[in-house]
Protein backbone atom coordinates (compact mmCIF):
# COMPACT_ATOMS: atom_id res chain seq x y z
CA UNK A 1 0.00 0.00 0.00
CA UNK A 2 2.98 2.27 0.44
CA UNK A 3 2.93 2.75 -3.31
CA UNK A 4 -0.37 4.61 -3.34
CA UNK A 5 0.96 7.78 -1.81
CA UNK A 6 1.09 10.30 -4.59
CA UNK A 7 -2.43 11.60 -4.86
CA UNK A 8 -3.79 10.99 -1.42
CA UNK A 9 -4.89 13.40 1.30
CA UNK A 10 -5.68 16.89 0.05
CA UNK A 11 -3.22 17.23 -2.85
CA UNK A 12 -3.82 21.00 -3.15
CA UNK A 13 -2.17 21.71 0.21
CA UNK A 14 1.60 22.25 0.35
CA UNK A 15 3.39 19.21 1.83
CA UNK A 16 4.10 20.79 5.23
CA UNK A 17 0.52 21.95 5.71
CA UNK A 18 -0.68 18.54 4.67
CA UNK A 19 1.50 16.86 7.25
CA UNK A 20 0.43 19.15 10.06
CA UNK A 21 -3.22 18.78 9.20
CA UNK A 22 -2.86 15.01 9.04
CA UNK A 23 -1.17 14.95 12.44
CA UNK A 24 -3.88 17.18 13.90
CA UNK A 25 -6.68 15.01 12.54
CA UNK A 26 -5.03 11.84 13.87
CA UNK A 27 -4.42 13.48 17.23
CA UNK A 28 -8.04 14.57 17.42
CA UNK A 29 -9.32 11.09 16.59
CA UNK A 30 -7.05 9.57 19.23
CA UNK A 31 -8.21 12.10 21.79
CA UNK A 32 -11.87 11.48 21.01
CA UNK A 33 -11.31 7.74 21.30
CA UNK A 34 -9.41 7.89 24.53
CA UNK A 35 -11.37 10.70 26.17
CA UNK A 36 -13.93 8.62 28.10
CA UNK A 37 -11.16 6.50 29.58
CA UNK A 38 -8.98 9.52 30.37
CA UNK A 39 -11.92 11.21 32.06
CA UNK A 40 -12.59 8.10 34.08
CA UNK A 41 -8.98 7.96 35.26
CA UNK A 42 -9.08 11.64 36.14
CA UNK A 43 -12.30 11.19 38.10
CA UNK A 44 -10.83 8.29 40.04
CA UNK A 45 -7.93 10.50 41.12
CA UNK A 46 -10.01 13.41 42.40
CA UNK A 47 -11.01 13.75 46.04
CA UNK A 48 -14.73 13.40 46.62
CA UNK A 49 -15.35 17.15 46.76
CA UNK A 50 -13.38 17.73 43.56
CA UNK A 51 -15.30 15.13 41.58
CA UNK A 52 -18.46 17.17 41.38
CA UNK A 53 -16.93 20.52 40.70
CA UNK A 54 -14.34 20.12 38.00
CA UNK A 55 -13.22 23.71 38.18
CA UNK A 56 -12.52 23.62 41.91
CA UNK A 57 -8.79 23.08 42.30
CA UNK A 58 -6.39 20.56 40.89
CA UNK A 59 -6.07 18.34 43.90
CA UNK A 60 -5.36 14.68 43.31
CA UNK A 61 -5.50 11.77 45.69
CA UNK A 62 -5.34 7.98 45.76
CA UNK A 63 -7.92 7.75 48.56
CA UNK A 64 -10.63 6.33 46.30
CA UNK A 65 -8.37 3.44 45.36
CA UNK A 66 -7.53 2.81 49.01
CA UNK A 67 -11.20 2.75 49.89
CA UNK A 68 -12.05 0.38 47.04
CA UNK A 69 -9.19 -1.94 47.93
CA UNK A 70 -10.33 -2.13 51.53
CA UNK A 71 -13.77 -3.31 50.43
CA UNK A 72 -13.66 -7.10 50.68
CA UNK A 73 -16.53 -7.62 48.30
CA UNK A 74 -14.85 -5.68 45.50
CA UNK A 75 -11.52 -7.42 45.99
CA UNK A 76 -13.29 -10.78 45.98
CA UNK A 77 -15.06 -9.78 42.77
CA UNK A 78 -11.73 -9.00 41.15
CA UNK A 79 -10.24 -12.33 42.10
CA UNK A 80 -13.36 -14.18 40.97
CA UNK A 81 -13.46 -12.44 37.63
CA UNK A 82 -9.79 -13.17 37.02
CA UNK A 83 -10.18 -16.82 37.99
CA UNK A 84 -13.32 -17.38 35.94
CA UNK A 85 -11.86 -15.59 32.91
CA UNK A 86 -8.69 -17.67 32.99
CA UNK A 87 -10.46 -20.97 33.50
CA UNK A 88 -13.06 -20.13 30.86
CA UNK A 89 -10.28 -19.32 28.39
CA UNK A 90 -8.51 -22.63 29.00
CA UNK A 91 -11.67 -24.72 28.73
CA UNK A 92 -13.04 -22.79 25.75
CA UNK A 93 -9.82 -23.33 23.83
CA UNK A 94 -9.72 -27.03 24.68
CA UNK A 95 -13.25 -27.44 23.40
CA UNK A 96 -13.30 -25.13 20.38
CA UNK A 97 -9.92 -25.88 18.83
CA UNK A 98 -10.90 -29.49 18.29
CA UNK A 99 -14.39 -28.61 17.14
CA UNK A 100 -13.06 -26.01 14.69
CA UNK A 101 -10.52 -28.53 13.42
CA UNK A 102 -13.28 -31.02 12.76
CA UNK A 103 -15.33 -28.40 10.88
CA UNK A 104 -12.37 -27.49 8.73
CA UNK A 105 -10.93 -30.91 7.92
CA UNK A 106 -13.99 -33.05 7.37
CA UNK A 107 -16.89 -32.74 5.02
CA UNK A 108 -19.93 -34.94 5.23
CA UNK A 109 -23.21 -34.96 7.11
CA UNK A 110 -21.74 -34.81 10.64
CA UNK A 111 -19.70 -31.75 9.78
CA UNK A 112 -22.58 -30.04 7.99
CA UNK A 113 -25.01 -30.71 10.83
CA UNK A 114 -22.54 -29.44 13.41
CA UNK A 115 -21.88 -26.28 11.43
CA UNK A 116 -25.59 -25.62 11.06
CA UNK A 117 -26.09 -26.15 14.79
CA UNK A 118 -23.30 -23.76 15.63
CA UNK A 119 -24.63 -21.11 13.29
CA UNK A 120 -28.15 -21.36 14.66
CA UNK A 121 -27.03 -21.19 18.28
CA UNK A 122 -24.75 -18.29 17.46
CA UNK A 123 -27.91 -16.39 16.52
CA UNK A 124 -29.94 -17.23 19.63
CA UNK A 125 -30.01 -14.14 21.87
CA UNK A 126 -28.30 -14.73 25.22
CA UNK A 127 -31.40 -13.74 27.12
CA UNK A 128 -33.33 -16.64 25.56
CA UNK A 129 -31.13 -19.20 27.23
CA UNK A 130 -29.76 -17.50 30.35
CA UNK A 131 -33.24 -16.78 31.54
CA UNK A 132 -34.22 -20.47 31.88
CA UNK A 133 -30.58 -21.30 32.69
CA UNK A 134 -31.21 -19.49 35.95
CA UNK A 135 -33.73 -22.19 36.90
CA UNK A 136 -31.71 -25.03 35.43
CA UNK A 137 -28.62 -24.15 37.45
CA UNK A 138 -30.75 -23.81 40.55
CA UNK A 139 -32.32 -27.22 40.11
CA UNK A 140 -28.90 -28.78 39.40
CA UNK A 141 -27.56 -27.14 42.53
CA UNK A 142 -24.86 -25.17 40.72
CA UNK A 143 -26.48 -21.72 40.89
CA UNK A 144 -24.07 -19.12 42.28
CA UNK A 145 -21.09 -21.49 42.18
CA UNK A 146 -17.92 -21.47 40.10
CA UNK A 147 -19.13 -24.42 38.03
CA UNK A 148 -22.46 -22.75 37.40
CA UNK A 149 -20.77 -19.65 36.04
CA UNK A 150 -17.80 -21.26 34.30
CA UNK A 151 -19.60 -23.84 32.17
CA UNK A 152 -22.19 -21.41 30.73
CA UNK A 153 -19.35 -19.05 29.89
CA UNK A 154 -17.55 -21.81 28.02
CA UNK A 155 -20.83 -22.63 26.30
CA UNK A 156 -21.16 -19.00 25.15
CA UNK A 157 -17.84 -19.23 23.38
CA UNK A 158 -18.40 -22.54 21.61
CA UNK A 159 -20.24 -21.24 18.57
CA UNK A 160 -18.25 -18.15 17.77
CA UNK A 161 -14.81 -19.60 18.48
CA UNK A 162 -15.46 -22.89 16.67
CA UNK A 163 -16.42 -20.80 13.68
CA UNK A 164 -13.29 -18.63 13.91
CA UNK A 165 -11.13 -21.70 14.49
CA UNK A 166 -12.58 -23.34 11.37
CA UNK A 167 -11.51 -20.28 9.41
CA UNK A 168 -7.99 -20.48 10.80
CA UNK A 169 -7.60 -24.19 10.05
CA UNK A 170 -9.01 -23.60 6.55
CA UNK A 171 -6.01 -21.37 5.95
CA UNK A 172 -3.52 -24.03 7.01
CA UNK A 173 -2.49 -26.62 4.44
CA UNK A 174 -3.44 -30.09 5.72
CA UNK A 175 -0.68 -31.85 3.77
CA UNK A 176 1.65 -31.69 6.80
CA UNK A 177 -0.87 -33.66 8.79
CA UNK A 178 -1.17 -36.26 6.05
CA UNK A 179 2.61 -36.51 5.90
CA UNK A 180 2.72 -37.05 9.65
CA UNK A 181 0.09 -39.76 9.38
CA UNK A 182 2.02 -41.54 6.62
CA UNK A 183 5.05 -41.43 8.91
CA UNK A 184 3.08 -43.35 11.48
CA UNK A 185 1.32 -40.66 13.50
CA UNK A 186 -2.21 -41.48 14.63
CA UNK A 187 -5.03 -39.05 13.76
CA UNK A 188 -4.83 -37.63 17.26
CA UNK A 189 -1.07 -37.36 16.93
CA UNK A 190 -1.41 -35.46 13.66
CA UNK A 191 -3.97 -33.15 15.23
CA UNK A 192 -2.11 -32.47 18.46
CA UNK A 193 1.49 -32.51 17.21
CA UNK A 194 1.09 -30.94 13.78
CA UNK A 195 -2.18 -29.04 13.37
CA UNK A 196 -2.35 -27.38 16.79
CA UNK A 197 1.24 -26.06 16.77
CA UNK A 198 0.82 -24.58 13.31
CA UNK A 199 -2.38 -22.85 14.46
CA UNK A 200 -0.69 -21.38 17.56
CA UNK A 201 -0.84 -17.72 16.44
CA UNK A 202 -4.57 -18.08 15.88
CA UNK A 203 -5.00 -19.88 19.18
CA UNK A 204 -3.19 -17.08 21.01
CA UNK A 205 -5.43 -14.53 19.34
CA UNK A 206 -8.43 -16.52 20.42
CA UNK A 207 -7.12 -16.79 23.97
CA UNK A 208 -6.78 -13.01 24.21
CA UNK A 209 -10.28 -12.41 22.85
CA UNK A 210 -11.76 -15.12 25.04
CA UNK A 211 -10.21 -13.73 28.19
CA UNK A 212 -11.42 -10.21 27.39
CA UNK A 213 -14.95 -11.37 26.54
CA UNK A 214 -15.27 -13.27 29.81
CA UNK A 215 -13.78 -10.47 31.89
CA UNK A 216 -16.19 -7.97 30.33
CA UNK A 217 -19.27 -10.20 30.31
CA UNK A 218 -22.25 -8.92 32.23
CA UNK A 219 -25.59 -10.61 31.55
CA UNK A 220 -24.47 -14.11 32.56
CA UNK A 221 -22.78 -12.84 35.67
CA UNK A 222 -25.85 -10.80 36.56
CA UNK A 223 -28.34 -13.64 36.21
CA UNK A 224 -26.27 -16.67 37.26
CA UNK A 225 -24.67 -15.35 40.43
CA UNK A 226 -25.93 -14.14 43.75
CA UNK A 227 -23.70 -13.16 46.61
CA UNK A 228 -21.25 -16.04 46.79
CA UNK A 229 -19.52 -15.55 43.43
CA UNK A 230 -19.50 -11.79 42.80
CA UNK A 231 -18.16 -10.73 39.40
CA UNK A 232 -16.59 -7.34 38.91
CA UNK A 233 -18.97 -6.13 36.18
CA UNK A 234 -21.99 -6.91 38.33
CA UNK A 235 -20.49 -5.24 41.39
CA UNK A 236 -19.86 -2.13 39.32
CA UNK A 237 -23.36 -2.01 37.93
CA UNK A 238 -24.71 -2.33 41.47
CA UNK A 239 -22.67 0.72 42.40
CA UNK A 240 -24.83 2.78 40.09
CA UNK A 241 -28.03 1.75 41.77
CA UNK A 242 -27.07 1.10 45.37
CA UNK A 243 -24.36 3.55 46.26
CA UNK A 244 -25.96 6.59 44.71
CA UNK A 245 -23.55 9.25 43.64
CA UNK A 246 -20.15 8.07 44.81
CA UNK A 247 -18.61 8.54 41.40
CA UNK A 248 -15.01 8.62 42.54
CA UNK A 249 -15.28 5.12 44.05
CA UNK A 250 -17.04 3.84 40.98
CA UNK A 251 -14.37 5.36 38.77
CA UNK A 252 -11.60 3.84 40.88
CA UNK A 253 -13.19 0.39 40.62
CA UNK A 254 -13.65 0.80 36.88
CA UNK A 255 -10.06 1.89 36.41
CA UNK A 256 -8.82 -1.15 38.30
CA UNK A 257 -11.06 -3.38 36.21
CA UNK A 258 -9.52 -1.83 33.11
CA UNK A 259 -5.94 -2.57 34.09
CA UNK A 260 -5.82 -6.36 33.55
CA UNK A 261 -7.83 -6.10 30.34
CA UNK A 262 -5.54 -3.34 29.16
CA UNK A 263 -2.40 -5.35 29.87
CA UNK A 264 -3.77 -8.45 28.17
CA UNK A 265 -4.85 -6.48 25.13
CA UNK A 266 -1.61 -4.52 24.95
CA UNK A 267 0.56 -7.62 24.92
CA UNK A 268 -1.99 -9.56 22.92
CA UNK A 269 -2.72 -7.13 20.08
CA UNK A 270 0.23 -8.43 18.10
CA UNK A 271 -1.16 -11.96 18.30
CA UNK A 272 -4.69 -10.85 17.58
CA UNK A 273 -3.78 -8.96 14.41
CA UNK A 274 -1.42 -11.68 13.26
CA UNK A 275 -3.81 -14.45 14.19
CA UNK A 276 -6.81 -12.93 12.47
CA UNK A 277 -4.83 -12.41 9.29
CA UNK A 278 -4.24 -16.10 8.50
Amino acid at each position, binding site marked *: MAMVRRSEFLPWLPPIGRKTLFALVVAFICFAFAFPVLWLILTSLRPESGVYYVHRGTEFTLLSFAEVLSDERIVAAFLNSALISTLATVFSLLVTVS*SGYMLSRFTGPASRIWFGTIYVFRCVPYI*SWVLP*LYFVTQSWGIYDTYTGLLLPHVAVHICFFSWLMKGFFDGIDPSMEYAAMIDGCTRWGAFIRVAVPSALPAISALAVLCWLFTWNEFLFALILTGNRVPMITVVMAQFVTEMGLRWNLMAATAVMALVPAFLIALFGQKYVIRGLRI
Partner: protein
Amino acid sequence: MSASRRPMFGEQQRFVLLLIAPAALLLLLFQVVPIVIGANASFRDWALYNPKKTWIGFDHYVAVITDPAFLYVVLPNTFLFMVLSVAGALVAGLMLALLLNRPFRGQKLVQTILLVPLMVAPVIAAIMIRWIFNDQFGIVNVVLEAIGLEGQPWLVQRWSAFGIILLTDIWLWTPWFTLLLLAGLQSLPKEPFEAAAIDGTTTWRVFRFLTLPMLRPVIVVCVVIRAIDAFRTFDIVWTLTGGGPGRSTELFSLYAYVHAFLNLDLGRGSAAAIVGGLIILVIGVVLYRLVDRIAKA
Protein backbone atom coordinates in the same frame (compact mmCIF):
# COMPACT_ATOMS: atom_id res chain seq x y z
CA MET B 1 -7.83 -26.37 0.35
CA SER B 2 -11.18 -28.05 -0.06
CA ALA B 3 -9.90 -30.42 -2.74
CA SER B 4 -7.59 -32.11 -0.25
CA ARG B 5 -10.27 -32.46 2.40
CA ARG B 6 -11.55 -35.98 2.55
CA PRO B 7 -15.08 -37.22 2.92
CA MET B 8 -15.88 -38.93 6.18
CA PHE B 9 -15.17 -42.65 6.26
CA GLY B 10 -16.37 -45.20 8.77
CA GLU B 11 -13.03 -45.53 10.53
CA GLN B 12 -12.90 -41.78 10.96
CA GLN B 13 -16.30 -41.52 12.50
CA ARG B 14 -15.10 -42.02 16.05
CA PHE B 15 -12.34 -39.47 15.68
CA VAL B 16 -14.72 -36.91 14.21
CA LEU B 17 -17.32 -37.42 16.90
CA LEU B 18 -14.72 -37.27 19.68
CA LEU B 19 -13.46 -33.94 18.32
CA ILE B 20 -16.84 -32.31 18.73
CA ALA B 21 -18.11 -34.35 21.69
CA PRO B 22 -17.09 -31.90 24.48
CA ALA B 23 -18.43 -28.89 22.60
CA ALA B 24 -21.64 -30.70 21.69
CA LEU B 25 -22.17 -31.86 25.27
CA LEU B 26 -21.75 -28.35 26.67
CA LEU B 27 -24.00 -26.94 23.99
CA LEU B 28 -26.64 -29.52 24.81
CA LEU B 29 -26.51 -28.99 28.58
CA PHE B 30 -26.23 -25.22 28.68
CA GLN B 31 -28.10 -24.06 25.59
CA VAL B 32 -30.43 -26.72 24.25
CA VAL B 33 -31.79 -27.85 27.62
CA PRO B 34 -32.43 -24.30 28.90
CA ILE B 35 -34.06 -23.29 25.63
CA VAL B 36 -36.38 -26.31 25.77
CA ILE B 37 -37.23 -25.52 29.38
CA GLY B 38 -37.76 -21.87 28.45
CA ALA B 39 -40.05 -22.90 25.60
CA ASN B 40 -42.00 -25.06 28.02
CA ALA B 41 -42.22 -22.20 30.49
CA SER B 42 -43.51 -19.83 27.84
CA PHE B 43 -46.70 -21.91 27.54
CA ARG B 44 -47.34 -21.92 31.26
CA ASP B 45 -48.58 -19.50 33.85
CA TRP B 46 -45.26 -19.67 35.64
CA ALA B 47 -44.48 -16.87 38.03
CA LEU B 48 -42.20 -16.95 41.04
CA TYR B 49 -45.15 -16.24 43.32
CA ASN B 50 -47.36 -18.76 41.55
CA PRO B 51 -45.59 -22.12 41.36
CA LYS B 52 -48.52 -24.10 39.90
CA LYS B 53 -47.31 -23.76 36.31
CA THR B 54 -50.71 -24.30 34.68
CA TRP B 55 -50.66 -24.80 30.91
CA ILE B 56 -52.14 -21.78 29.18
CA GLY B 57 -51.17 -22.32 25.55
CA PHE B 58 -50.25 -19.30 23.48
CA ASP B 59 -51.58 -16.66 25.89
CA HIS B 60 -48.13 -15.27 26.69
CA TYR B 61 -47.22 -15.04 23.02
CA VAL B 62 -50.45 -13.21 22.28
CA ALA B 63 -49.78 -10.88 25.21
CA VAL B 64 -46.25 -10.14 23.98
CA ILE B 65 -47.18 -9.65 20.34
CA THR B 66 -50.13 -7.39 21.16
CA ASP B 67 -48.26 -5.43 23.82
CA PRO B 68 -48.05 -1.85 22.47
CA ALA B 69 -44.80 -1.31 24.38
CA PHE B 70 -43.28 -4.30 22.57
CA LEU B 71 -44.69 -3.45 19.16
CA TYR B 72 -44.23 0.28 19.06
CA VAL B 73 -41.25 0.90 21.33
CA VAL B 74 -39.14 -2.19 21.89
CA LEU B 75 -39.09 -3.64 18.37
CA PRO B 76 -38.51 -0.33 16.54
CA ASN B 77 -35.81 0.56 19.08
CA THR B 78 -34.11 -2.78 18.63
CA PHE B 79 -34.08 -2.63 14.83
CA LEU B 80 -33.10 1.01 14.70
CA PHE B 81 -30.32 0.32 17.16
CA MET B 82 -29.15 -2.71 15.17
CA VAL B 83 -29.00 -0.89 11.84
CA LEU B 84 -27.45 2.35 13.11
CA SER B 85 -24.96 0.67 15.42
CA VAL B 86 -23.67 -1.67 12.72
CA ALA B 87 -23.57 1.05 10.06
CA GLY B 88 -21.82 3.53 12.34
CA ALA B 89 -19.20 1.09 13.59
CA LEU B 90 -18.60 -0.22 10.07
CA VAL B 91 -17.97 3.22 8.57
CA ALA B 92 -15.79 4.36 11.48
CA GLY B 93 -13.95 1.04 11.60
CA LEU B 94 -13.27 1.08 7.87
CA MET B 95 -11.93 4.62 8.01
CA LEU B 96 -9.64 3.80 10.91
CA ALA B 97 -8.46 0.58 9.28
CA LEU B 98 -7.55 2.52 6.12
CA LEU B 99 -5.73 5.07 8.27
CA LEU B 100 -3.74 2.39 10.10
CA ASN B 101 -2.96 0.50 6.93
CA ARG B 102 -0.58 3.22 5.71
CA PRO B 103 2.69 3.77 7.49
CA PHE B 104 3.21 7.05 9.35
CA ARG B 105 5.24 8.09 12.36
CA GLY B 106 3.68 7.03 15.65
CA GLN B 107 1.44 4.54 13.91
CA LYS B 108 1.94 1.85 16.56
CA LEU B 109 0.89 4.27 19.30
CA VAL B 110 -2.19 5.41 17.39
CA GLN B 111 -3.14 1.79 16.77
CA THR B 112 -2.88 1.00 20.47
CA ILE B 113 -5.00 4.02 21.40
CA LEU B 114 -7.65 3.16 18.83
CA LEU B 115 -7.93 -0.34 20.26
CA VAL B 116 -8.63 0.99 23.76
CA PRO B 117 -12.44 0.52 23.65
CA LEU B 118 -11.92 -3.17 22.89
CA MET B 119 -10.64 -3.64 26.42
CA VAL B 120 -13.34 -1.64 28.11
CA ALA B 121 -16.20 -3.70 29.47
CA PRO B 122 -19.55 -2.44 28.16
CA VAL B 123 -20.61 -1.90 31.76
CA ILE B 124 -17.57 0.29 32.42
CA ALA B 125 -18.18 2.18 29.19
CA ALA B 126 -21.77 2.79 30.23
CA ILE B 127 -20.66 4.04 33.65
CA MET B 128 -18.13 6.42 32.09
CA ILE B 129 -20.62 7.79 29.60
CA ARG B 130 -23.28 8.12 32.27
CA TRP B 131 -20.87 10.19 34.30
CA ILE B 132 -19.74 12.30 31.36
CA PHE B 133 -23.36 13.09 30.44
CA ASN B 134 -24.57 13.52 34.02
CA ASP B 135 -26.94 16.50 33.94
CA GLN B 136 -25.50 18.18 37.04
CA PHE B 137 -21.84 17.29 37.21
CA GLY B 138 -21.09 15.83 33.79
CA ILE B 139 -18.24 17.36 31.86
CA VAL B 140 -20.39 17.81 28.75
CA ASN B 141 -22.80 20.13 30.51
CA VAL B 142 -20.02 21.89 32.39
CA VAL B 143 -18.30 22.67 29.10
CA LEU B 144 -21.55 23.70 27.44
CA GLU B 145 -22.36 26.08 30.27
CA ALA B 146 -18.83 27.44 30.29
CA ILE B 147 -19.18 28.50 26.66
CA GLY B 148 -22.58 30.00 27.35
CA LEU B 149 -24.89 27.24 26.11
CA GLU B 150 -27.53 25.50 28.11
CA GLY B 151 -26.83 22.09 29.63
CA GLN B 152 -29.19 19.32 28.63
CA PRO B 153 -30.67 16.53 30.75
CA TRP B 154 -29.18 14.10 28.22
CA LEU B 155 -30.25 10.81 29.70
CA VAL B 156 -33.81 11.72 30.60
CA GLN B 157 -34.97 12.65 27.11
CA ARG B 158 -35.83 9.81 24.80
CA TRP B 159 -33.85 10.63 21.67
CA SER B 160 -30.80 12.10 23.31
CA ALA B 161 -30.64 9.03 25.58
CA PHE B 162 -31.03 6.76 22.56
CA GLY B 163 -28.35 8.70 20.71
CA ILE B 164 -25.95 8.39 23.62
CA ILE B 165 -26.55 4.64 23.88
CA LEU B 166 -25.88 4.38 20.18
CA LEU B 167 -22.74 6.47 20.40
CA THR B 168 -21.42 4.35 23.27
CA ASP B 169 -22.07 1.18 21.33
CA ILE B 170 -20.37 2.50 18.19
CA TRP B 171 -17.40 3.63 20.28
CA LEU B 172 -17.18 0.19 21.85
CA TRP B 173 -17.39 -1.84 18.65
CA THR B 174 -15.49 0.30 16.16
CA PRO B 175 -12.10 -1.21 17.14
CA TRP B 176 -13.50 -4.64 16.52
CA PHE B 177 -14.29 -3.68 12.94
CA THR B 178 -10.95 -1.89 12.65
CA LEU B 179 -9.11 -4.99 13.77
CA LEU B 180 -10.82 -7.40 11.40
CA LEU B 181 -10.76 -4.98 8.46
CA LEU B 182 -7.10 -4.16 9.09
CA ALA B 183 -6.29 -7.86 9.11
CA GLY B 184 -8.26 -8.13 5.87
CA LEU B 185 -6.49 -5.13 4.30
CA GLN B 186 -3.08 -6.48 5.17
CA SER B 187 -3.80 -9.80 3.52
CA LEU B 188 -4.85 -8.22 0.20
CA PRO B 189 -2.50 -8.83 -2.74
CA LYS B 190 -0.15 -5.91 -3.43
CA GLU B 191 -0.02 -6.05 -7.23
CA PRO B 192 -3.34 -4.35 -8.15
CA PHE B 193 -2.51 -1.43 -5.88
CA GLU B 194 0.95 -1.04 -7.38
CA ALA B 195 -0.55 -1.11 -10.85
CA ALA B 196 -3.07 1.55 -9.81
CA ALA B 197 -0.28 3.70 -8.36
CA ILE B 198 1.67 3.49 -11.61
CA ASP B 199 -1.45 4.51 -13.53
CA GLY B 200 -1.86 7.47 -11.17
CA THR B 201 -5.38 6.48 -10.10
CA THR B 202 -6.89 8.73 -7.44
CA THR B 203 -7.16 7.46 -3.87
CA TRP B 204 -10.94 7.52 -4.00
CA ARG B 205 -11.07 5.39 -7.13
CA VAL B 206 -8.57 2.93 -5.69
CA PHE B 207 -10.78 2.63 -2.63
CA ARG B 208 -14.03 2.41 -4.56
CA PHE B 209 -12.96 -0.04 -7.26
CA LEU B 210 -10.12 -2.02 -5.65
CA THR B 211 -10.15 -1.99 -1.85
CA LEU B 212 -13.87 -2.12 -1.25
CA PRO B 213 -14.69 -5.02 -3.61
CA MET B 214 -11.73 -7.05 -2.35
CA LEU B 215 -12.69 -6.43 1.27
CA ARG B 216 -16.32 -7.32 0.68
CA PRO B 217 -16.23 -10.86 2.14
CA VAL B 218 -14.60 -9.60 5.36
CA ILE B 219 -17.07 -6.71 5.59
CA VAL B 220 -20.07 -8.96 5.15
CA VAL B 221 -18.91 -11.43 7.79
CA CYS B 222 -18.28 -8.56 10.24
CA VAL B 223 -21.69 -7.10 9.56
CA VAL B 224 -23.49 -10.40 10.04
CA ILE B 225 -21.77 -11.21 13.32
CA ARG B 226 -22.16 -7.70 14.67
CA ALA B 227 -25.79 -7.36 13.58
CA ILE B 228 -26.72 -10.52 15.44
CA ASP B 229 -24.86 -9.27 18.51
CA ALA B 230 -26.36 -5.80 18.34
CA PHE B 231 -29.82 -7.31 18.40
CA ARG B 232 -29.21 -8.76 21.85
CA THR B 233 -27.46 -5.76 23.44
CA PHE B 234 -28.19 -5.63 27.12
CA ASP B 235 -25.41 -4.33 29.34
CA ILE B 236 -24.89 -0.79 28.09
CA VAL B 237 -28.59 0.02 27.99
CA TRP B 238 -29.16 -1.54 31.39
CA THR B 239 -26.37 0.49 32.97
CA LEU B 240 -26.87 3.74 31.04
CA THR B 241 -30.60 4.26 31.20
CA GLY B 242 -32.15 1.05 32.53
CA GLY B 243 -34.49 1.32 29.53
CA GLY B 244 -35.67 4.75 30.62
CA PRO B 245 -36.83 7.48 30.56
CA GLY B 246 -40.05 5.54 31.08
CA ARG B 247 -39.52 2.56 28.82
CA SER B 248 -38.53 4.56 25.80
CA THR B 249 -35.02 3.14 25.26
CA GLU B 250 -35.89 -0.44 26.09
CA LEU B 251 -34.41 -3.02 23.74
CA PHE B 252 -35.62 -6.57 23.29
CA SER B 253 -33.23 -8.18 25.83
CA LEU B 254 -34.29 -5.69 28.46
CA TYR B 255 -37.94 -6.34 27.77
CA ALA B 256 -37.49 -10.07 28.41
CA TYR B 257 -35.31 -9.44 31.47
CA VAL B 258 -37.72 -6.93 32.99
CA HIS B 259 -40.68 -9.27 32.59
CA ALA B 260 -38.86 -12.29 34.00
CA PHE B 261 -36.86 -10.79 36.83
CA LEU B 262 -38.49 -7.52 37.79
CA ASN B 263 -42.13 -8.43 37.19
CA LEU B 264 -41.24 -12.01 38.24
CA ASP B 265 -43.30 -13.44 35.38
CA LEU B 266 -41.06 -16.15 33.96
CA GLY B 267 -43.63 -17.38 31.45
CA ARG B 268 -44.12 -13.98 29.87
CA GLY B 269 -40.38 -13.29 29.87
CA SER B 270 -39.66 -16.63 28.21
CA ALA B 271 -42.28 -16.01 25.57
CA ALA B 272 -40.72 -12.61 24.81
CA ALA B 273 -37.25 -14.19 24.67
CA ILE B 274 -38.48 -16.82 22.23
CA VAL B 275 -40.27 -14.30 20.02
CA GLY B 276 -37.04 -12.29 19.83
CA GLY B 277 -35.03 -15.47 19.26
CA LEU B 278 -37.22 -16.45 16.33
CA ILE B 279 -36.97 -12.99 14.78
CA ILE B 280 -33.19 -12.94 14.95
CA LEU B 281 -32.99 -16.53 13.73
CA VAL B 282 -34.86 -15.58 10.56
CA ILE B 283 -32.59 -12.54 10.12
CA GLY B 284 -29.54 -14.70 10.78
CA VAL B 285 -30.48 -17.28 8.18
CA VAL B 286 -31.22 -14.61 5.58
CA LEU B 287 -27.91 -12.89 6.32
CA TYR B 288 -26.09 -16.20 6.12
CA ARG B 289 -27.50 -16.85 2.66
CA LEU B 290 -26.24 -13.41 1.71
CA VAL B 291 -22.73 -14.12 3.01
CA ASP B 292 -22.66 -17.41 1.22
CA ARG B 293 -23.68 -15.85 -2.08
CA ILE B 294 -21.21 -12.98 -1.78
CA ALA B 295 -18.37 -15.27 -0.71
CA LYS B 296 -18.99 -17.47 -3.73
CA ALA B 297 -19.36 -14.60 -6.22
